[in-house]
């Protein structure tokens, strides 16, 4: 337990060392999560555009976007 205390104290410099690692973690994690979220949004937006474009190309199949009928 004492070893944990010593570790956290960082020789008296805890107030500088831990916020440094904290800031790096927050910025890097923030970048990662924001980038993944943006990719998901763009993928969904593109999918919506492509499927509606497909619908517009085949007006006869407007009501059954999922089912297929033999030609």
């Amino acid at each position, binding site marked *: 337990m004492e070893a944990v205390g010593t570790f956290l104290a960082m*020789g008296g410099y805890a107030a*500088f*060392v831990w*916020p440094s690692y904290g*800031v790096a973690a927050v910025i890097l994690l*923030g970048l990662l999560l924001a980038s993944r979220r943006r990719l998901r*949004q763009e993928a969904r*937006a*593109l999918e919506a555009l492509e499927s509606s*474009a497909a619908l517009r190309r085949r007006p006869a199949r407007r009501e059954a976007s999922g089912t297929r009928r033999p030609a």
Partner: protein
Amino acid sequence: MSGLPRAALAATSSAMHRFANPTVALRLADRLMPWSAFLCAGLFMVGLYYALIASPIDYQQRDTVRIMYVHVPAAWMALGVYAMMATASAVGLVWRHPLADLSAKAAAPIGAGFTLICLVTGALWGQPTWGTWWVWDARLTSVLILFFLYLGYMALWQAYDDPGRAARAAAILALVGVVNLPVIKFSVDWWNTLHQPASVFTLQGPKIDPSMLKPLMLMAGAYLAFFVTVLIYRLKAEILARRASVLRRARAES
């Protein structure tokens, strides 16, 4: 032109032509991603263990030296990412490679993030060692300028409706800002600064004990793998966004 340089030029040229096709680029990115993500996680785990636990204190800076392991790799990435952005911008301007501008655009926020980490951890390291959070010496000032260059670059992309003009304006800013890179690197040699000279990349070799060089290089590797991973996410998003805007414009015109 003799044999070897001509062959290298031909290989680079054909690679660039192949990856000019976004679909090919996306497929490569999808294959690369799991590796870079896995490397990133692994290097962070080992790097943090060595940085925080399995490395000694410094003879004068004591435990504050551990801040070096998050500060210095961030500085290296801040410079390296900008160099990559400037190169991609030049390629975009000269060869009109379609993915060049997009990869620079994707890289910019990551580089800005690394620069911010460098500035903040630098302040947290400066206060207990130098006795101040900030000084306007040549090193710190030029890195702050780098941060503003990143922000300006990102802002230029938003400033234009036409993506072609935005790309060109941003590319020009990226290239103009390149002069800042040697200023940053050599600031500690050319002028009297509070920031000390280089410890790793010196003509006499590293001036860091191996027990400290190890966590430093591990964290540098982790940061690099992080950059590749997040760049892939962002570049994919840019490619998809461009496809969507092309579709929207086609629909509007039809």
